[in-house]
């Protein structure tokens, strides 16, 4: 790989992207004032958003940027992740202030926990940002493991039986899974070190390096290692049957965190799989990893279809829907054509937006109704017209109805499934999607419409609606139009996935 000299501005930008959340964590820890820490978080995540947008434009210009002697490295693929993380992070922080404020008013959290929440929030952002920024796969693994640890702390924020249970399961399962991923990483590293003895131990784990040497890897070793990677990161990404922690954790976390978990964290793990998928495709061709991805993806969609249909808890339902969408993304990556991968990356972004919208609105809803049980919620549109409308839009979008954005990416994915000859898999996916549609649609309609069970005061306009309105707007727009820079970014990224070409 060529070490292009990068302007100091860019390297400062990348460093500060990582430093901002840390600094804000420190500020939060020091200040400990309820009113300010939320604002600090909003400001810092806004700064992150601006920085990452700037970074995206640099990426579009330069294609690949690596600083700090190749430790930090971004290309378009990381760009897709960064934009997702920072956008959802910003919106989530915006929502957090109102949500956690209400929880505080209801005495569900005290000031200490509030501080811990914002510390965790910022650290969570940091760890997630580290994933796409790091070139070294070992560091990437550490970052992903760190996201687990931070988010476990966030999930057990309310010390309740169910949240402890969820965090324990999350911790154990994710850690076991990630250990498998580390195992796989070790084998890739080994394969790399065998093929090129001149490497020092730190460069040997660089992704750029591995891609370059990939054609020298031993095929059966790559297969062996990729299975571990797939199962390992797949656990974290919520791909069935390793997804079992996901519904528990996502449903027990505070809603803004659920949005981050579902919308972003899962994608980080998918990102991990993608990186190794590229290496393995370069080494042994993409057929092997594609097959595995399709099998597990279809399985995920099927499992979540069954679970969504009978679900009784709103947030669990949304969590299973995340399993479904991770399945779709993995199937899409498995289809392997450029359109499919384009669709997969677009789907990552779309799903992040829609799912955060759903978690935000369902958070407000369950706060208002004081329950998460689907059967106890009805007539939302009567009691909370604005939030109910947002929830409805989100729900319709997530089940793949046009003119919302998910429809477009699913359309791309399925059509490329057919054109790449994966008829069986695509047909299965469509079949399961119809079941999911039925299940999710059933719950959605029963919740949004009908007569509210209790007499409740109508919702007033408050700040929590703002992030939702932004998201609804984005969902609508992206349903029929992909902004040009984003399109370029995703196109480049999908070319990277397909060709493994680092440079243009």
């Amino acid at each position, binding site marked *: 790989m060529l070490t292009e000299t990068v302007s100091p501005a860019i390297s400062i930008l990348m460093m500060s992207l990582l430093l901002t959340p840390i600094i804000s964590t420190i500020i939060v820890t020091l200040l400990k004032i309820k009113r300010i820490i939320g604002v600090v978080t909003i400001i810092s995540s806004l700064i992150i958003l601006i920085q990452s947008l700037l970074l995206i434009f640099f990426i579009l210009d330069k294609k690949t940027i690596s600083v700090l002697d190749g430790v930090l490295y971004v290309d378009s693929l990381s760009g897709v992740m960064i934009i997702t993380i920072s956008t959802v992070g910003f919106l989530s922080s915006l929502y957090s202030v109102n949500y956690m404020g209400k929880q505080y008013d209801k005495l569900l959290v005290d000031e200490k926990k509030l501080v811990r929440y914002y510390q965790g929030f910022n650290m969570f952002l940091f760890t997630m940002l580290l994933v796409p920024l790091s070139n070294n796969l070992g560091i990437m693994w550490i970052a992903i493991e760190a996201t687990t640890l931070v988010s476990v702390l966030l999930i057990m924020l309310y010390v309740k039986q169910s949240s402890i249970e969820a965090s*324990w*399961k999350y911790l*154990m*399962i994710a850690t076991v899974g990630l250990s*498998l991923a580390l195992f796989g990483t070790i084998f890739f590293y080994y394969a790399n070190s065998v093929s090129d003895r001149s490497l020092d131990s730190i460069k040997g784990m660089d992704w750029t390096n591995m891609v370059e040497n990939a054609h020298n890897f031993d095929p*059966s070793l790559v*297969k*062996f290692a990729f*299975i571990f990677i*797939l*199962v390992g990161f797949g*656990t974290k990404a919520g791909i069935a*049957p*390793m997804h*079992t922690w996901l*519904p528990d954790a996502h449903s027990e976390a505070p809603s803004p965190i659920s949005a981050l978990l579902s919308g972003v964290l899962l994608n980080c793990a998918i990102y991990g799989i993608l990186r190794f998928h590229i290496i393995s495709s370069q080494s042994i061709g993409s057929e*092997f990893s594609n097959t*595995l991805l399709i099998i*597990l993806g279809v399985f995920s969609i*099927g*499992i979540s*279809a*069954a*679970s969504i*249909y*009978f679900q009784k808890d709103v947030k669990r339902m949304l969590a299973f829907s995340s399993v479904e969408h991770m399945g779709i993304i993995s199937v899409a990556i498995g289809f392997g054509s450029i*359109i499919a991968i*384009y669709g997969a990356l677009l789907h990552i972004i779309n799903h992040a937006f829609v799912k955060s919208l759903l978690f935000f609105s369902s958070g407000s809803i369950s706060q208002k109704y004081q329950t998460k049980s689907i059967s106890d919620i009805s007539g939302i549109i009567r009691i909370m017209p604005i939030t109910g409308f947002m929830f409805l839009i989100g729900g*319709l979008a997530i089940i793949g*109805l*046009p*003119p919302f954005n998910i*429809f*477009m990416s699913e*359309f*791309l994915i*399925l*059509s490329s499934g*057919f*054109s790449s*000859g994966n008829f069986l898999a*695509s*047909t299965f996916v*469509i*079949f399961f*999607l*119809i*079941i999911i*549609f*039925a299940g999710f*649609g*059933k719950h959605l*309609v*029963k919740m949004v*419409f*009908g*007569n509210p069970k209790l007499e409740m005061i109508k919702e007033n306009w408050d700040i929590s609606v703002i992030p939702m309105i932004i998201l609804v707007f984005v969902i609508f727009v992206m349903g*029929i139009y*992909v902004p040009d820079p984003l*399109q370029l970014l995703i196109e480049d990224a999908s070319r990277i996935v397909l060709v493994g070409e680092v440079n243009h």
Partner: protein
Amino acid sequence: MYGIFVLFSLGAVIGLFTRGHKNNVYFTYIPAIIASFLTIVLSFLILFSEPIQVNLFNILHLFNFEILIDGVSAFFLFLIGLISFAVSIYSLSYSKKLDDKKNNSSLGLFFNIFIISMILVIISNDVFFFLIFWELMSLISFFLVIFEHENKNNVNSGLTYLVMTHFGTGVIFLSFLLLYSHTGSFSFDSFRDIGLVPQHIKDIVFVLVFVGFGTKAGIVPLHIWLPKAHPSAPSNVSALMSAVMLKIPIYGIIRYLFDFNSIDTQDYVWWGIGMMVVGSISALVGVLYALIENDIKRALAFSSIENIGIIFIGLGLSVVFASFNLMSLSIISFVAAMFHTLNHSIFKGLLFMAAGSIHYSTHTTNIDDLGGLIKKMPWTALMFLVGSIAITGLPPLNGFISEWLTFQSLISIFQIPSSIFQVVLAFTILVFALTIGLVVATFVKLFGIAFLSNGQSSKVTDATEVPRFMLVGKSILALLCVLFGILPFIGLNFIVQAFDLSYIPLNPFEPISIKNTSGDNFASLMMPAAIIIFISVFAGVFVFVRIIGGKTKTTKYGTWDCGFGSSSERTRYTATSLTEPIRRIFGVFYKPRDNIEHEFYSEENKYLKKTSSVYSITRNIFDELLYEKVTMSCLSVLDKIRRIHTGKINAYILYIMITLLALLAFTGFGING
């Protein structure tokens, strides 16, 4: 053209923003009226000039938003424009029923978007946008179905609708993707060079297209949503749904059958036969359930299934004839199907609007609660009668013409050069005839029980004639029923022009004639002359009777009550008892059961009955046997699958381990050294 969209959206938006204003209704529907009128104009313009093809914009270099309005689209545009024109006028008064102003404006919003989406489906020339608008149409109509969502039944029927229609969309999607995988482009233009696609793919695609669009059209057994959804919507929307939305899938099927494919070999015979079989079953089952239904709107919805069945019989025949290269017959049956499509839109729109008027005045659609409305609402009664006569296919209204054509093309199956097909297809005649007989019974029942005799419930006695806009809306369609019946050449020429058929346009003073293979006149029909005969006979008879009878007296007196002197409401025939004989004959479809309850003067003496009441219960075998069983078995499988979430962390980690080992084994890892 863009004016249409602008106006509809204007209607949608203004209505939303002027909610609470007392003229809100006018703001909402007047743009819609103008826009639908423009749609009609547009469709005529297209007919008499070149098709319009505009490329608007492009997404991702894959999806072109391209508009193509050719004759086929123009025909359906005309349909949409016509019905929405009448329905919009009707809605001016109808939606005043809703006292909640806010709801009213959202109804207007959805109403307008619904029409826009249907137009967009018809004119888009790209898979992606076709599907987007298709789903938009379904979604909006779903919102309209659950518009009165306080009623739990409405929500449930809306859900059934949503799920079924999405199933249909999924299947359509599949079919398009299959085509796409062979043509490599999402534009319909590429699908038109379908010659490259192998026959077995075409066959699969046909099945998918038929099932997918058929679900939306309500073919049996995929129809169960229809009788639930259509009655749940507000009546102006039911009119649109039944009259127009059901035709959009017909459009899709026609696109595939006749635009993308060119049917010329016997490979396609089974397509046609399949459509005919399904069409016949739909027609029969639809009308059988319409017959026993006591809710007007549900009965009308079932009758829509029947009419869709008849349309499919026509289309299927057309395919069969075409595949045997009997082009002129194929054209006749195609024209029959299309004319029936047009006619069904007109009279079903009319009937639903009339049903809406009944609901407007009496707040019920159950005919057993009604009776004697003809005296309270004479104009509505007249319109309903016109609609009924038209839908039963009796002369001189339009239904007769299309059913005449359909039957003529059915008779012509003896020209098919294959005995087996002839015998098989001839059975369609039986079903078709039975259907026609049952339709008569259905509408005698609906009209007779609801409008005739003398109702005494407060619902009826308080009823008044509906406001004038509602009458105007209905009378437009009623007049068209008469017009297309008496002067069928207008409609037929329109169809010939729209579909560019090599069928000689008709002269108003020539009979519609069908020639057989040797060129002889096989059958002919000349409605204007028949009407002249009818009217002159009427005049003659009138004069004759006057002459020989002279002037006689007419006395009004009570109905003969066998001398008991109490001809009350309770001695009337009810809707259920009216259809009792038929219900017994077709018991297999209804599984009727009579519950008899007695009330005694005293419990000890069971011989002195105070009252006896009989309730007849009928069941829908499709709901109960087919759908319940299928869904229950599917769901129980799903239920078993989801139970893998046992809550035990050990199990969860075991899954991970098993997956790992299974994948290792799957890759045959152990084999290679």
